């Protein structure tokens, strides 16, 4: 199954690429069409770029959700790490560190956090749901403690370019996100590590019997997740010009929804990273479109919850 996916990946041509994720593309087209009527400015270039910029953070986090799900796990701590990393980066800059070192520190914090997740999950075989839920509490709490319960400013104009700047027409955040997708697409399809991640997600016992070091793979997966969430946290703090310790709360569920909408199976071992990107874009468009339509925030929450459940239902019934 995994090998088959891989060989398909190697010979992939553009038409087959479109055939493999038609559902997402159609859903995106439909959403664009519908929102065009609910709000006339929706298809304006400035709004589309806005969607791309807002969506970049979710698309980065979604890779983490996807990796955890493919390895037959789940990562609920991503949102907490987004908050924590943003606070770490902002505090480090306020303490006089340069942008580069501050961002590295934030990424390191995220990676260490993820590594702890991976270590506990791999060593104890405790359900990843409860481990990462506990770590979510720890991360949210640490972010609050570091930020002393309030928002930390991060007004450095160069730092703000990461999340708010444009390179030509393309937002820098989107560029970062695309790079992440290309890197992880390469890792998943072209390296042994990628094959092993699919393998332990599909059938962990068989994978271990065939000589795969499941401990190491899980450690690596959750560390990657921490790193990605850390990156998303930096981008988010940069976009807002400030780090709010609770800035990432709930984004892990959007990420999980993106992966599942994109065709990843929660039973592990199945799903594609491009599908996840499509899922994340759908959710980003939904959030923006409902907002642009001028609906009250509460109604947006209700509709978004129902639509995501509907898409996931259709997907699960189709399979």
């Amino acid at each position: 199954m995994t090998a088959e996916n891989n060989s398909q990946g190697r010979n992939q041509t553009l038409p087959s690429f479109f055939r493999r994720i038609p559902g997402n593309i159609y859903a995106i087209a439909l959403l664009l069409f519908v929102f065009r009527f609910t709000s006339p400015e929706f298809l304006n270039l400035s709004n589309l770029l806005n969607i791309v910029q807002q969506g970049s953070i979710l698309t980065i986090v979604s890779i983490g959700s996807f990796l955890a799900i493919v390895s037959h796990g789940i990562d609920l701590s991503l949102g907490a790490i987004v908050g924590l990393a943003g606070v770490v980066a902002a505090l480090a800059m306020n303490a006089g560190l340069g942008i580069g070192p501050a961002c590295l520190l934030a990424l390191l914090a995220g990676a260490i956090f993820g590594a702890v997740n991976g270590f506990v999950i791999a060593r104890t075989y405790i359900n990843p749901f409860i481990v990462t839920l506990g770590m979510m509490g720890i991360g949210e709490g640490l972010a609050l403690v570091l930020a002393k319960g309030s928002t930390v400013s991060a007004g450095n104009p160069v730092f703000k370019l990461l999340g708010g700047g444009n390179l030509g027409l393309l937002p820098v955040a989107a560029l970062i996100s695309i790079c992440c997708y290309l890197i992880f697409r390469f890792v998943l399809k072209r390296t042994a590590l990628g094959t092993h991640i699919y393998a332990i997600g599909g059938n962990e016992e068989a994978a271990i019997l065939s000589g795969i070091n499941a401990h190491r793979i899980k450690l690596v997966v959750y560390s990657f997740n921490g790193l990605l969430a850390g990156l998303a946290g930096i981008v988010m703090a940069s976009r807002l010009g400030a780090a709010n310790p609770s800035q990432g709360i709930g984004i892990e569920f959007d990420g999980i929804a993106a992966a599942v909408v994109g065709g990843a199976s929660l039973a592990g071992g199945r799903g594609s990273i491009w599908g996840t990107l499509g899922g994340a874009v759908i959710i980003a468009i939904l959030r923006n479109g409902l907002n642009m339509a001028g609906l009250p925030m509460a109604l947006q929450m209700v509709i978004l919850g129902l639509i995501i459940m509907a898409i996931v239902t259709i997907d699960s019934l189709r399979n």
Partner: protein
Amino acid sequence: MFLPLVTKYSRVIALLGICAVIAILSPNFLTVNNLTNVLRQAAFTTIIATGMTMTMLIAGIDLSVGSVLALTTCLAADFLRPDLPITYMFLGILIALGVGALFGCLNGLAIVYLRLPDFLVTFGMMQVARGLAFLYMHGTVVNGFRDEFTFWGVGRILGVPVPILVATVVVLLTFLLLKYTNFGREIYGIGAKRSVAIYSGLSVPRTTILVYSFSGFIVSLAGLLYIARLDAAEAVIGEQFVLQAIAAAAIGGISFDGGVGSVLGTVVGALILTVLANGMNLLNISSVWQVAVTGAAIVIAVVLDRWLSSKA
């Protein structure tokens, strides 16, 4: 011979140990007033956590508890005003409990018949219920309930605060239900091995739907006691209860893979969480630490639990 005993009562030992440390550090801990306060706070978490225990025993989870609590109490709030006849109060209570059970039932139906993962369904429901609560309240706060209602939150019977009594009754009933009825045995059976449960003729759909309905019902009961204590209802309340209820159950030894644990363990878990919060309060540790401590308590508890059971 010694180790199995430690394993069995590890949570009680941990609770006593934490109490001892706090009592040494703060002279105000072991006062009747403070301990009553701890028990009263633990009562709300305990009641919600009994519902969470049931869902976790069938290897599920209910993330919608905080939002359903907010929605049901907001719906009831208008009926509880002192200028209305007392029949309205009963109507309000019925509405809250009924809507709670209904939302739980919807969770169960979606999980069973749409074959969706439990945490995604209940997370979606969390958004929907919270959104509906906001839509219903329009940012307002309803406060000032009639005395017969607030009694359930602030009153005492024979010197014991009412929420503690209600929590005791709920826990006892749940304990008996799980231990001595067929329904209870079905819950453990489904949690332990779903496929075997199906083949041995247990009705997994029926039990699942009933368990989630119970969770919704019990959450709105806790919510009613909670707003009776606050003497106010608004759309934002209850968010903290999700993590606390899961933490109480997890610390109490309810396995996340289902089928293992007792509701009495959950009570000890809720007490550990509340004592920790109370101790931090007495020792003047900022409340921003509380979420981190709850998270750490979950991780430490499940890891220790796994370690101890591998030794035994």
